[in-house]
């Protein structure tokens, strides 16, 4: 088990990179997922269809295929995803600003894939709000957006938060794939680096990696439990 202490810096830098991409991808997926959810519950049929097509595409493709399209399809289309080199943000998240586009490609893949699940988690919350609420709001003359903002979403949030948390936890675990699509040095790749090339025994390294992921996911789960309990009291 001494590898956990001797190679702590390797684990730590892997943890940091995984945390970076998960943080960015979570924000991206929550924004995009909300937009798609609004599309799917909007009163305009073409927008609803658009949302449905999006969800059915990305929810039903294997994640590795989405990664593959991002890493090899985008360059074929002639883009390096440079729109993600956001000034300011690339100081904290240095990988966003490098010439190498693979961090950005991986981020796009994770966001596109996770957004489909975020959309469905939000929509399940909306569906949990009794239909009478929205009808009552409409009868008061609220527009669609007002209806969502003041009546439906505040109530749906309660039902959405737990599935939403599960989606984000799944996304953190999914991020373990980025090391196979051109991003150097994430948490699960440090396992390969230490065992195959460094000759370290596999099991202690795997335990170290597992601890790294648990540090990210367990507090998130505990936080969700807390939110859920507080809301149960409020209700």
């Amino acid at each position, binding site marked *: 088990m001494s590898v956990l202490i001797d190679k702590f810096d390797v684990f730590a830098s892997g943890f940091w990179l995984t945390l970076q991409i998960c943080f960015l991808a979570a924000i991206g997926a929550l924004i995009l997922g909300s937009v798609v959810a609004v599309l799917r519950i909007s009163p305009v049929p073409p927008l609803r269809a658009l949302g449905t097509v999006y969800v059915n595409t990305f929810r039903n493709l294997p994640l590795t295929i989405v990664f593959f399209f991002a890493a090899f399809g985008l*360059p074929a289309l002639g883009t390096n995803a440079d729109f993600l080199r956001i000034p300011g943000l690339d100081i904290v998240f240095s*990988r966003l600003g490098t*010439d190498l586009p693979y961090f950005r490609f991986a981020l796009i893949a994770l966001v596109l894939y996770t957004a489909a699940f975020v959309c469905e988690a939000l929509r399940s919350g909306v569906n949990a709000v009794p239909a009478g609420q929205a009808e009552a709001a409409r009868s008061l003359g609220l527009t669609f957006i007002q209806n969502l903002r003041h009546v439906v979403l505040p109530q749906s949030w309660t039902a959405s938060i737990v599935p939403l948390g599960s989606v984000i936890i799944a996304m953190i675990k999914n991020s373990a794939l980025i*090391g*196979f699509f*051109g991003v*150097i*040095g994430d948490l699960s790749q440090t396992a390969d680096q230490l065992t*195959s*090339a460094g000759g370290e025994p596999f099991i202690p390294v795997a335990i170290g990696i597992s601890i790294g992921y648990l540090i990210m996911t367990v507090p998130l789960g505990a936080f969700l439990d807390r939110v859920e309990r507080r809301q149960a009291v409020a209700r």
Partner: protein
Amino acid sequence: MRTKRAAVLAAVAALALGLTACGDDAGEETGSGGSDKSFAAGSTMERLNEAQAITIGTKFDQPGFGLKGLSGQPEGFDVEIAKIIAAELGVPEDKIEWVETPSKVREDKIADGSVDMIVATYTIKDERKERVSFAGPYYEAGQNIMVKKDDTSITGPESFQDGTKKICSATGSTPIEEIKKYLKDVPSQLVPFDTYDKCRDALQSGQVDAVTTDNVILLGYIADDEDAFKLAGENFTKEPYGIGVKKEDTEFRDFINDILEKAYADGSWQQAWDDTAGTFGAELGTPPTIDRY
């Protein structure tokens, strides 16, 4: 009583002799090589010869060395070398059980006895000698760099020190760790993929400037498309491939070393290469000196 016992003994002896004779005949008829070889009692060689079976670890995903294709049997230089050794042990080819041994598990598989030996692009290294013993080397590979045919700006690993060129290799491999020493800024210069095929695609589409790994693998890609790629300079590492056996099994190790030297002399080593990795256009060169440490 006395005469009776003697008679019984004689009868038993005669029976035993007769049976042995039968066994010999049968052996000659079927042409089994098992019975005409003799090994020191208690040695690994004797055990394998008696069992008429051997379990060999190799790679299933290494073109030219050990690749399990549609035929269901692994093929390559490593596999041919292993077959030469098995033949010397008197074990027929169809009695070899092939086990996939990726880089991660090689030491463990030898240590727990689930394979008798490993021939799997297994670089002889001091830290590995602490857990296994190596026969060989039977081949000396080296790390090299592949670039686009018209690229003259990259001449070796030093070309990456200024921090502008980007290079690709396989996740968790020895070459990817080696090239890190030459890079100025790893996150902006190094791209890992799970397979070298993806690295080649990234080189083709211009996302990276070079691909690095063992020369033999690169030569395979160059042989596929000679107009597109070339090697940039000479090998910059030495990777002597050895045969892993159980630690401190010196008898078995010496036995394999003798076979290798014999194979160098009688041309079967060269033949094994020409049939496998040699088809990529790589030269085998002179046999590496056996390291009887």
